[in-house]
Each structure stands twice: as C-alpha cells, then as structure tokens.
C-alpha cells in the first residue's frame, strides 16, 4: 500500500503553531505517542497502525483542539484536512485488502488509546497535537 502523503506541507503548517501548542501541554512526564514506540515499529502491518492513528487524530484529537486564536484554528484545520486526505487513501488500501491489522499493530494502537484516555480530554488532545512531529517522522519513513 504505497501512498503519497505530502508530509512536508503538514510539517510546514504544524511548524507555525508548534511552540504555542506544546506550551499548552502541562504534563511533561507523560506521552501519548511515545517517541520510541513508533520508531521500532516498521513491520508488515504498519499500514494498519498508520491508518488507525490517523483516524484517532480525526475522531478524537483535532475536535478538542479548538483555541481562542483564529490563526491557530485555521492551521489546525489545514492539518486535519490533510490527515483526512491521507486517511482516505489508506481507506482505499484497506478496501483492497492491502492494509490488514496484525496483533502487534492492534496492541500498539490500544496502548496509544490507553495513554490518551488516562488524561483530561482537552489536555490529551493538545498533547497529542503537540506530538505531531513524532507521527510525521514515522509517516515520512513509512
């Protein structure tokens, strides 16, 4: 399942708001994506994990990231719509049975959800958005 993702455009958009978003994350001792957990994860069903994480951001993260800043909201919208554009491509792979979920991908995804659900929704969403670099680096290597 090879997909063009245009990650640098998302990175550019995120780069303009990253400092502000990460400054709103008071919980320094916890992580949702965990920088190491994704990077030693390059096995066959990374497609499934990628799609699951994209849907996690679409379903749970972006909607809780509204800020009082119009500029930041516009940039978050750009990122969210780019994620949706990529997720739709993964969906095609899944429909053609090229994006199956193995046990490790499922376990990894559930770990991310557990990390997320241990925190207050808004704080968790802002933290997950602040960790976008981790995800983008991993997707870029996909």
């Amino acid at each position, binding site marked *: 399942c090879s997909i*063009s993702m*245009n990650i*640098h*455009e998302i990175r*550019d*958009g995120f780069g303009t708001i990253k400092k502000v978003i990460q400054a709103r994350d008071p919980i320094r001792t916890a992580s949702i994506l965990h920088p190491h957990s994704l990077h030693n994860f390059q096995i066959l069903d990374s497609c499934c994990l990628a799609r699951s994480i994209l849907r996690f951001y*679409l*379903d749970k993260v*972006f*909607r809780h990231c509204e800020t009082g800043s*119009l*500029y930041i*909201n*516009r940039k978050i*919208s*750009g990122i*969210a*719509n*780019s*994620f*949706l*554009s990529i997720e*739709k491509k993964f969906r095609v792979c899944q429909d053609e049975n090229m994006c199956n979920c193995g046990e490790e991908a499922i376990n990894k995804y559930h770990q991310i959800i557990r990390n997320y659900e241990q925190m207050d929704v808004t704080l968790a969403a802002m933290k997950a958005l602040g960790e976008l670099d981790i995800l983008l680096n991993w997707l870029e290597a996909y």
Partner: protein
Amino acid sequence: GVLLPAPRNITILSTNMKHFLVWSPVMVPGAAVKYSVEFQGEYERDYANDSWIPIGECTGISVTQCDITEDISATVPYDLRVRAGVGTQASHWATLSSFFNRVTTSLIPPMLTVTADGYHLLVELERLGPAFEFWIYYWKKGQGHKVYRKVVKDSSTTLHMDTMEAGTEYCVKAQTYVEAINRSSNFSQVQCVRAEAGKAILVT
C-alpha cells in the same frame, strides 16, 4: 427593514496553486458595504459538526476578493461562503455553487530564460513557491531522440544544465510538477541557444 442582499457570482480563480475567492459587489446607495469570508474543509463537514472557520484577513473587507491560498492547504473538497454587512445589518451567507478542490488549479507552463555562456548551458526559472518542482528537458538540436532531464526544486538560482560542445545548438523546454496534487503543467516554449564556436589553436 429590507434584508441586505447576499453577494452573488461567488467564484474561485485558481492558478498555479494560488486560490482567490471573488464575488460581485452588493450595491447599497450611500452605504459602505463590508464583506466577510469563511471556509470549511471536508474535515469540518465530516468530523466537526459542519463548522465554518472565519478568514481573519477577509473579515469586514471592502474589496470583493479574498486570497484563500493559505487556508486551502489540503487536497480535499472545500466550501466557502461570503456575506455582506452594513453597520450591524448582515446578509445571508452565500456559498459556492460547488465544492472547490485544489487539484483543479490551472498549472501554467513555466517561464524560463535559456542562455549560453561560452560553453555553458544556463537556465533561469521563475519562482513559484515550495509546492513546485521543475522538470527541465534539454537536447542537442536535431537529436530529439536523446533528451536529458533535470528535476529542480529550488528555482531561486541560475541553473547550470550542462557543458556544451563548441558551436553546437542546444534546445530546452520545461514543465512544472506539483506533488500535492500529482499533476504537471504543459511544456513551456522550446528555446534554443548555440555554444561558442571552438577557437583555432595556433601551434608554433
């Protein structure tokens, strides 16, 4: 009182990944009509309760156009709306007749300047922004079957394409490619230049 009419003829003009929303002015004798623009991507429709996002630079403006390039930053269908306002009175929102996807932008063949500097084949390109790659093709005139290609992302400097054979004519053409929408422009006009003739070397 009579409600302010909504703007009409809302259209998007999109060329080389620059997108502008334009509309017809609302005429109210003796009043200064202001306009405000909002956008909505597929994400907002499907995941964020059909919400709309104001474009700050196009809130309370007098002109009848808005640069929406920054906000159309994904390859998904977008909707846009604009309304008129006079004082505290505002018209209904008027929206696009159909969604806009940046994949439909018009890609114009790039402008380039080809020069021969002695034996060096040089090309200068226009700047189009980070979304663009330039695919440059060159060949010896009359040898169109043997074409060389260079892919260039940074068009800010003069490009040295090749060292030419003395006195030989070389031809160049180029097209742009935009990865975000996976499309190319048509080719530019072909331009040919001749390398400096070889110098006779006097052997004594």
